[in-house]
């Protein structure tokens, strides 16, 4: 740290309230350049805030400790070298960059997510097999590979595993992993900075494009247009595209039909929530990765109590391991029960759709059987939609399972109900209130 800046901070710490000092001034980094003290901040909002509230004090301090030899300048940035994970859109190259001149960014692949560290079960074995195929036959096996399923089930893990497998065989391969929102953000930046051609070159020249959560392109027409061309370009050159999504291609709302249709060209494979055995195996493997030998009965106990997604499982395991490291006690079922007390006690009351149906029916003063009936009266359909949405949120059941539990309805009916209720929660105070009340009733 600049010694002048270090002295300034010591002085300012006594002059500026603690929370303000910690929030706004501590994170600034200082670089001395000639007669300038450059203060680096993560974004323009922080710079604006600092200028607005603390500039005179900053200037006084810098004047005092530099004997008037330095002036302050603000800049967005960071002193620490950070990993470049997006194309350099400000590059001077604006047209016609050959693939070899476009900067490769291998570091966005997470080395921990490999096929070896992925736990296979009935719910995900097809997706894993297809991913392995793709990594062995780039651009030939299934193109695009489209992996879909709910959040937190391992879609991203498989994507990185493909990337790692390819890089292992060919370290110079140009493999790019990114979230679809980043594609949108980069494109917006490129348009603002007039570097759209560099942007296009970058994405159209990768060997493998791994794009996560493609559903976030919904409603973004310009990004969809650009992605459409990127996609076609890569497929024409037989470069591999792997996509993940929360639903089947044809069911993505807000996406152009031509994209939906193309996403279905290769192989769409589903990942379902893991069954009990797989959840148990996941826990044992994740514990091993942290150097912990988790007994089978404990893993089984946790897996049984946390029936939802892999992220919840990992969160529970982290808690057990953290407590073990804190106390030094052996990990047993009793120990885990105690460590997960908060999580389990809440979970216990929430696991069944029956329970949700009963609570919702009581709340709206209708009969439970009405929720499964064919009635289309709003006094019945609204509670039914709310119950379905709650079932989706609070249990690990799939859309089809929820549909079955509500009079054998189709899974798309459940999906539409969830979308409808989530939208209404934003616009209709009554629905938002009812939903919150029910959520509270079911969780205490």
């Amino acid at each position, binding site marked *: 740290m600049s010694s002048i800046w270090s002295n300034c901070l010591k002085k300012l710490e006594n002059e500026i*309230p*603690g*929370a303000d*000092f*910690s*929030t706004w001034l*501590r*994170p600034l*980094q200082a670089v001395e350049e000639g007669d300038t003290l450059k203060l680096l901040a*993560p*974004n*323009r*909002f*922080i710079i604006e805030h600092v200028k607005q509230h603390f500039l005179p004090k900053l200037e006084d301090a810098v004047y005092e400790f530099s004997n008037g030899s330095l002036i302050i300048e603000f800049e*967005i940035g*960071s002193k*620490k070298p*950070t*990993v470049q*994970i997006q194309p350099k859109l400000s590059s001077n190259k604006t047209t016609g960059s050959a693939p070899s001149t476009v900067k490769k960014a291998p570091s*966005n692949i*997470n080395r921990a997510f490999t096929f070896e560290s992925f736990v296979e079960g009935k719910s995900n074995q097809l997706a894993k097999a297809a991913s392995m195929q793709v990594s062995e036959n780039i651009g030939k096996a299934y193109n695009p590979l489209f992996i879909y399923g*709910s*959040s*937190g089930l391992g879609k991203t893990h498989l994507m990185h595993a493909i990337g790692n497998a390819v890089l292992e065989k060919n370290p110079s391969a140009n493999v790019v992993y990114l*979230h679809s*929102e*980043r594609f949108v*953000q980069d494109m917006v930046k490129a348009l603002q900075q007039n570097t759209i051609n560099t942007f296009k070159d970058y994405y159209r020249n990768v060997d493998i494009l791994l794009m996560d*959560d493609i559903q976030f392109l919904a409603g973004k027409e310009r990004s969809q247009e650009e992605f459409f061309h990127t996609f076609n370009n890569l497929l024409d050159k037989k470069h591999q595209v792997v996509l993940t999504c*929360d639903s089947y291609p044809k069911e993505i709302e807000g996406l152009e039909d031509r994209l939906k249709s193309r996403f279905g060209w290769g192989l769409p494979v589903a990942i379902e929530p893991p069954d009990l055995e797989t959840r148990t195996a996941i826990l044992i493997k994740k514990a091993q990765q942290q150097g912990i030998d988790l007994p089978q009965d404990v893993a089984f106990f946790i897996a049984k109590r946390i029936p939802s*997604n892999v*992220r*919840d499982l*990992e*969160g529970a395991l*982290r*808690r057990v391991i*953290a*407590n073990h*490291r*804190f106390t030094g006690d052996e990990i047993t079922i009793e120990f885990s029960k105690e460590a997960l007390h*908060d*999580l389990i006690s*809440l*979970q216990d009351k929430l696991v069944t759709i029956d329970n949700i149906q009963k609570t919702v029916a009581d709340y709206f003063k209708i009969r439970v059987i009405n929720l499964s009936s064919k009635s289309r009266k709003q006094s019945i359909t609204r509670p039914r939609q709310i119950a379905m949405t709650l079932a989706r*949120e*609070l249990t690990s059941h799939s859309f089809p399972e929820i549909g079955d539990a509500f009079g054998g309805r189709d899974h798309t009916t459940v999906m539409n109900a969830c979308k409808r209720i*989530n939208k209404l*929660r*934003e616009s209709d105070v009554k629905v*938002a209130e009812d939903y*919150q009340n029910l*959520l509270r009733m079911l*969780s205490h």
Partner: protein
Amino acid sequence: MAVQLPLQFDLQSENNFDSFFPASNQELLEHLQRFIHDKQELQLYLWGETGLGKTHLLQACCQQAQHIGRQAFYLNLIDANPEILEGLDAIELVCLDNVDQIAGNADWEHALFNFYNRLREREHQLLLTASCPPRYLPFMLHDLKTRMSWGLTLKLKILSDAEMIAAFRLKAQSMGIEVPDRIARFLQQHYQRNLPGLWQLLDKIAQTTLMEKRKLSVAMIKRIIDQNGPN
């Protein structure tokens, strides 16, 4: 008699680990310290009822991280706009207070989701607080919600009456104010049972004792409460 103007008291600057009364949260403090020092975990989610000291702990973590030379940033989401998250993923430890408060705001949820993904790609740490466990965050964005339960989740336990008074005494002591037993009893019986309320009262006590140059008494507390409203 001329009344001496008091210095500006800023209780937030006291938000460090030493001034936090642990009560039955000792283990939680240990986890937080490890989180900052070991850097083994990427995410820690701290939840508990309002008034238990989540903000205090978050600021303590942020300050401690900075004192050991780490880049850290504290942000209360209640006061902020989503744009503030731009570029913050470059910071090693980001502490976001009251994350539940942005639920239902589509712009905020998307901004937080993107920020989360960027921060994780860089393997930088995230420390969060909320008033409910991750599972009950009323987020519209399911993908964001599942991410909240990914790391270590800790609950801040409620303080008993006796523990709350002990916490009050500890904080008062750090400001040079002794709290006799009869005053502690009075507060226990008559004053609100949440820490922010007690800290505000303490702030007023500090100013009054300094201005009037008198020791703390029950009568003085009664007067302060009458002037500022009891609860």
